[in-house]
Structures are given as C-alpha cells and as structure tokens.
C-alpha cells in the first residue's frame, strides 16, 4: 500500500481533472463538489504522509520506463514541504475559483487544466530523478497554458504566447543540461549528490548554467522574468495559482534541488557557482521591487513583487549556509501563502468593485473591510513586519547572509524591504485612510453565500500568514519543517 502512496498522491488530481472535462456545464454543482472533495482528500493524504515522514519514513515508487531511466516518485521532507503547500493552497484556490467565476462560461476546461496543474506541481515536488522532474516540469508548462489564455482575448493570447516561448525555451535548456549531465555520471537520484569530481570544471559550470537558466525562466530570475508580468492577463485565480504555488515555485524548487541534491553544496561551493547566483538573485530582488514601485495596475505591481520575492528563495539557496537554506525553504511556503492572499484579494476587489489600478483603491477598506484586512496582512508580511511569516523568512535569510560572509545580503534585504514598503504602504494608506471616491460601486461585502465564499479563502490564508509567523517554533510549522529538512539532509 505504502509503495503506491506517492503515485496516488501525484495522480489523485487526475480524477477531478477528467470529471471536470467530462461533466456538462449544467452539472457544475457536482463539479464543484468533486473538486473540493478531492482537494480535501489530498490534504488528508498529505497529512498522513507528514506524520510518517516526520518519523523518518520516506516512501518511494519507481518504474523503469526505459532501460537505465527510472521514473521515481519519492516523499522526502523537502518534497512534502512543497506538497503540503500545494495541497493546502489547491483547496483554497479551488474554493476561491468557484466563487470567483460563479457560473461563467467554459469552466469545465478551466477546472480540468487547474487540476492537471496541481498534478504537475505535485509531481515536480516528488520527482526522484532529474528526468522525472523534467517530465512533470513540462507537463506543468502545458497545463498552465490553457489557464493563461483562458479569457481568449488578444491580451491573454499574447501572454500565452510569451509564456510558452519563455518556458519552452527554458525547458529545452534544462533538458540539454540534464541529458548532458546524465551522459557524464548516469542517472541522478535526489538522494545523494553523485560524484562529480572527475568531470572538467568547465563542463560542470556550463551544465549548471544551462539547468539554472532553464529553471530560472519559471522562477522569473532576471533576465528571464519577462513572461510573468504579461501573464497577469489571466484571471485572478490563475494568477494566484501561478504565483503562489505552481509555476514560479516549481522553478525555485528545481533550483534548490539542483544546488543541494544534484550538484551538492560542496561541488557548488568548490566551483564557485553559489555567489554569482546569489548576486543574480539579489539583483532580481531589487529590480523586481523597483519595477513594482512604478506600476499603477495592482496586479502588475503584485507580479513584479513576485519576481522579487521568489528570488529570496534562490538567494537563500545559493548562499549555502544553515540559516540561509532554512530561510529559503521557509520562504517557499511563506511567500506562497502571502502572495496567494494578495492575489485573491486583488481579484475580489476587481470582481466586486471593479478596482484595477492603485488609484481606484481610495476608501476600499470601508466598502470591503475583510478583504482589505487580509490584503493588509499579506502586504505587511511581504514587507517583513513581525510577527508575520515574512519576518521569519527575512530574519533567517539575513542571518544566513552574515553566516556565509555575504553582508551585502543585509543591504539587499533592507533595500528590498524599503521598496516593499514603498509599493505596498500607499495601497494600504489609500484603502484605509482616504475617503472613498464617488465612482466606486457601493457593495456589501458579505452579502450572499457566493460573496462570502469569495472572501473566505483570503481570510484563511491571511490568518495562516499570521500563524506561520507567530507560531513559527511549533512543530509542523513551516519553519520547523524547514529546519527538519535542513538537518536531515542539507547540512552536513
């Protein structure tokens, strides 16, 4: 039974995907029920696995799809960190999407691909070899494209085109890298880094660049970030999913795997590859923040904020040190929770009151206090105000920078936090302290089940943002789990 658990966990969303595709629109209620119940089932399954992995039991499923090429799904602690996040946010995003779209057209397709996306993200997390990782990584690309072009207007199609060009080119580079590496050292399982000592430095460096470059596209590292702000053309639930868990996180997750499980920190430090990557991540953090400040569209601003925030993870991973990696891992979760909160709120504001740009926000806090409260918590978290989750991340990253003799990291973090404040606080100021503009539709935030359902997910994740910060030392908190990962494998 346990052997098939990883398989079950990955392919569970396939069932609601198929059902969503197949059910006619008039049975939409059933589709909603099925989607939510499968999300719950998956969460339960993840809970069960969390308990067993904490006891040190990892389960594994392997299948030799080609001689010498294993397809491996494994539940190690790092995988579970990502899976827990995705399972939790999947449930949240499903509820939100149902409320957001109501009974709009062609949702069957949307929920079908939505589920495939989650399948791919889970697969990315549990992949036990580079080639398995690649399989799911590509599947993720394919499954997200229909979501990006969901609206079908000129802008979405353009976004979809740009998204594909970036991500497929990235995947090609990544594929070249892993095939090259495999031809040198054979199959690479993510259990212990292979022995790379006999391989010329130049080759290793080139492969590293190919792989990180390829993964960096999804993680929106500069200069490969161009697709992300464009992808804002997608509906809010898609943006939430893309930014918080699926696409960008798959890239960041892959980079962590590359550094810690494929090359191993020793090889990376020996080759001197960590510092350039850290610098690039730092540059991305500052660049993203700068661009965010300049945006007037709320979703665009959030998008550039994502560019910046995801690189925190890469920064932490590339600094190579106990605190830094804990910071990176914990931020993987924290950023997800915070960013999904922000996107869901932005979507709700747009959906209910037609607010799209910063200037429209005046007085929105009075019309939709719950939404704006959740938004504010997310924004403060992003800035890194204690006791939110964001503070925990930045604290560890900062310590990690000091520990790795990279004091410039503190400057980057400080600068970024300043910029974060610069682009988030005005929103809060406008929403809470300015009088509402006349043209804003007057809405009653919590009227009707649909509307309550639209707010509820954001409220939950906002509370989670607070909880992750306030109860960071409790077992099973993201921080504790990140420490578990770091202690179990990444720090020797």
């Amino acid at each position, binding site marked *: 039974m346990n052997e098939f658990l990883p398989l079950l966990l990955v392919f569970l969303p396939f069932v609601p995907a198929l059902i969503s595709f197949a059910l006619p629109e008039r049975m939409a209620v059933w589709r909603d029920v099925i989607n939510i119940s499968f999300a719950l089932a998956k969460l339960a399954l993840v809970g069960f696995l969390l308990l067993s992995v904490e006891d040190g039991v990892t389960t594994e499923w392997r299948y030799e*799809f080609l001689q010498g090429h294993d397809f491996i799904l494994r539940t190690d602690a790092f995988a579970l960190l990502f899976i827990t996040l995705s399972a939790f946010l999947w449930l949240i995003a499903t509820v939100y999407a149902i409320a957001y779209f109501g009974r709009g057209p062609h949702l069957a397709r949307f929920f079908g691909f939505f589920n495939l996306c989650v399948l791919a993200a889970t697969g990315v997390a549990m992949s036990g070899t580079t*080639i398995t990782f690649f399989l799911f990584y*590509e599947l993720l690309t394919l499954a997200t494209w229909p979501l990006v072009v969901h609206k079908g207007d000129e802008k979405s*199609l353009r976004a979809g*085109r740009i998204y594909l060009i970036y991500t497929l080119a990235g995947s090609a580079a990544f*594929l070249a890298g892993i095939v090259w590496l495999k031809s040198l050292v054979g199959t690479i399982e993510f259990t212990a880094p292979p022995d790379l000592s006999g391989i010329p430095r130049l080759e290793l460096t080139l492969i590293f660049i190919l792989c990180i470059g390829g993964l960096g596209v999804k993680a929106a590292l500069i200069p490969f970030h161009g697709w992300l702000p464009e992808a804002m053309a997608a509906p809010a639930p898609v943006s939430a999913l893309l930014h918080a868990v699926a696409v960008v996180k798959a890239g960041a997750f892959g980079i962590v795997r590359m550094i810690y499980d494929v090359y191993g920190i020793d090889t990376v430090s020996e080759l001197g590859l960590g510092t350039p990557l850290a610098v690039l991540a730092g540059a991305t953090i500052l660049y993203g923040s700068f661009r965010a400040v300049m945006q007037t569209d709320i979703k665009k601003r959030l998008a550039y904020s994502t560019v910046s925030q995801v690189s925190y993870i890469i920064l932490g991973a590339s600094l190579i040190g106990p605190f830094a990696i804990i910071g990176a891992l914990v931020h993987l979760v924290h950023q997800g929770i915070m960013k999904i909160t922000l996107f869901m709120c932005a979507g709700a504001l747009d959906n209910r009151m037609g607010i799209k740009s910063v200037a429209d926000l005046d007085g929105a806090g009075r019309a939709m206090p719950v939404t704006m409260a959740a938004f504010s918590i997310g924004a403060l978290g992003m800035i890194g105000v204690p006791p939110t989750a964001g503070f925990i991340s930045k604290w560890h990253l900062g310590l990690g920078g000091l520990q790795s003799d990279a004091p410039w990291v503190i400057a980057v973090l400080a600068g970024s936090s300043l910029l974060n404040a610069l682009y988030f606080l005005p929103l809060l100021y406008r929403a809470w302290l300015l009088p509402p503009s006349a043209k804003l539709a007057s809405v009653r935030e919590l009227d009707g089940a649909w509307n309550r359902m639209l707010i509820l997910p954001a409220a939950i994740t906002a509370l989670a943002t607070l909880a992750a910060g306030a109860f960071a030392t409790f077992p099973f908190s993201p921080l504790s789990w990140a420490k578990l990962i770091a202690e179990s494998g990444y720090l020797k």
Partner: protein
Amino acid sequence: MSPLDLLVAAPLAFMIAALLSGPWGRWWLLAAIPVMAGLTVWLLLLPEGSGHVVGGWTLPLGVQLRADGVAQLMVAATAVCAAIVGLYALHEFAPGADRSETAHGFAFWPLFYLLWGGANAGFLTTDLFNLYIALEMVSLAAVAMAAMGSLRAALRYFVIALVGSLAYLLGVALLFSNYATVDLTLLAEMARPDLATKTALAVMTAGLLIKAAVFPLHGWLPPAHAAAPAPASALLSAIVVKVGFVILLRLWFEAFPAIIAPAGLELLGWLGALAVLYGSVQAIRQDTLKALVAYSTVAQIGYLLLAFPLVATAAGTGGAWAGMTIHATAHMLAKAAMFLAAGLMLKAVNGHHLKDLHGLARAMPLTVAAFGLAAVSLMGLPPSAGFLAKFLLLEAAVEQGAVFAAAVLLVGGLLAAVYLFKPLAWAFAGSDTPVVVAKAPLRTAAPLALALLAVSLGFAGQAMVDITAGSPWAGPPATEAEDVQ
C-alpha cells in the same frame, strides 16, 4: 503458416472485395480491422528476425519476407493508423444520397487497401526489386488520394514520384547486374565498394529522399498533403513517406553499412537538420491549417535523417536507433491524428485558415484536445512517444558530442511549439462560441484515439525499444534470417 505474407495478401483480398461490393465496399473495413489486428499481433509475437522465402523457393531467386524490429514496429503502427483512419473515412467516403456509387466514395476503398498492402509489403520484404513494386503500390494509391483534393498538386506529386521511382529502379538494375541478386541480406554479405555499387546507392538514395520528401526534395509534399481530404492526408503523411524512409534504412544500415562513407552519413544528417529548420520555419509562416500541418511533416521527417549519423556511430548502444524508429512511429500516430482533427475542425467551420478556428476549443473541445495531444507528441514534450524519441536521440547526440544535432533537436522542438500553438491559440481565442455543424460527431473519436495512443506510448518506452532492437542487423553484424514454419 506465417503472418508475413498474409499481412500483404489480406489487404489485397479486401481490395478485391471492396471492388466487387460496389456501394457497400466500405463496410469491408469492419472485417479488415480484426483480421489485420490479429495478423499484426501474430507478427509481433514472432521470434526476432524470423522470415521465409515466398512460395518455398530459395534465394537468390525468390523473394524473402522477414520480421525484424523495424518491420514489426512499422507494420503495427500502420495497422493502427490505417484502421482508425479507415473508420474515420467511413463517413467521408460513402455512397451518394441514393445509395449510388460516387467516384471518390467508391475508389477510395480499393486504393486504401492497396496502400495498406503496399506499405506492409514494403516493410516486410528484404528484396530490393519487390520493394520497388511495393513503393509503386503505395505511390499510386497516394497520388490518387492526393488527386481527390487537388488535381494540380497530385500531378506535381505524381511526376516527381515517378522520377524518384525510376532513380530507385536504376539503382536496383545496377545492383542486380553487379551481384546477381536483389536480396538485401545477400547483398550485405557481398557488398564491395566499387563504382557500380556506389552509383547505385547514390541514385537509390536520391530517389528515396524524393519519396520520403526530405529537404530539399520535399517540394511536392506540402501542396499534395494540404489539399487532400483529411483521411487521405493522414495516410499520406503518416504512412507513405515512411515507406521510403524504411527502405533508406535498409540500404544504409543493413545492406551497405560497410561501404558507406562517414561523409555520406554526415550529408544526410545535414539534410535532416536543414529539413527540421526549414520545414518548421515554413510551417510558422503558413496561415492555412493543413499547409501548416503538412510543412510540419517536412520538419518531422528531418529528425529521421538527422539521426542517421548518430545511428551509425552508436553501434552497440542502440539509443539513437531506438530513438529514430520510435520517432517514425510516434510521428505516424500523431500526424494522422492531427490531420484527422484538422479535417474535422475545418469541415465544421467551413474554412481553411487558422483564424477560422476562432473559439473552436469551446465548440469542439474533444477535437481540439486531440489536436493538442498530437501536438504534444510532435513537439516532443513528455510523456508522449515523441518525447521519448527526442530524448533518446538527444542522449545519443550528447554522448557522441554531436552538439549541432543536439541543438537542432532542441530548437526544432521549440519551433514546433511555435507553429503548433498558433492554431491552438486561435482555437482558444474569443469568448463567444461559434456555431459549428459537426457531421458524424463520433468521428472525433478517431483523432482522439490516435493522439492518446501517441501520448501514452511514451509509457511503453522500453517495450518499443525492445521491439525495435530486434533487428538482426542493428547492433551486431548481420546474421542469416531464420526460417520458421
């Protein structure tokens, strides 16, 4: 008893039956499918390299049939394609309103079986002259099917194919004169690098490159494949070009590997690379759907040629060999699916252009899904068989340090994504659902089944690698084909 000759005889028997049955001829398909399926399974179960000489005569007089890995894989893929395309065609090639015969509705079916039988004959024989006849069977049916769409394109195809056939025949004549045999297995033992052999090989290769539509001899393909009715296009792109390719394989890697100069392999590799790039760029530039899909065939054939130098240098590992043959199989299934899906979509909107597909993902979700899945395999994205093939080729290229080939493989995949997502983007465009009239909606199952197969065969990777490795001449030196009764 052996399935080898029955796989050729059965379609021919059905050809006669279809000819005799007039307006009812199409229904023979329902008998043909189980018969051919049974024979194909039987073929797959045969021990590696089993074969015999037809009629119980002996070489060099007789014609030897043999089941090696390539033949098994290609015959099986052909059977799947032909069966499903045939089912799809039942509606398109039907009698007129008053049960009277129509020229196309009647003639398609005998030609269909001629093509099927000819393709099987071509895959199974080791006799170069017999291959010539098989090639003509296939070409004749193919041109006639192309003529059902555009007479002009068919004429162009016909004239060029004729030259290709004659070039091939000239080579056969020279080889027979030189060695007093036209059997590949005997030639492999006797091959000498003399002028006659080299000339023969050169002209035969040129002829086959025409038949397989390899750049720069591909000119006839796009107009003919784009204009033909959907099931005909599917058969042409999936099966017909593969016959020329398989003969090329047999010549280069079975009969004359000893006298092939590396430069020749390199040349074919370059042609393949150019075909991938040129075909893709042309496909990107098309604004009609079927022309796009047809140029995609030009590009995909390029991969097969690109693999030639990799296969030759990778003796023993077999990765490139498997990659090449699996690519041929994957392309067969995916391209047939894509043409059928394209046919349904265009029929429904009554147009030809990409922009006519506007919003079709909503009106015909399953058909668009079939197109999309086929596209996944053609782009070489996981988990499809197309990915498996590309992965194996890429691995071989990287292992051999063939950086250029590896780059072409990767870039080709990206270009394929560019041109294949264009129609998909149109299908996903717009928020209003167009009103389409899909006749015989059950037909959607055909492209969907083919596309799903192309994608899911990726999971059966090792099985396909094992089958295709069953060529007595792919890895170790050639051995005599065994005779099984």
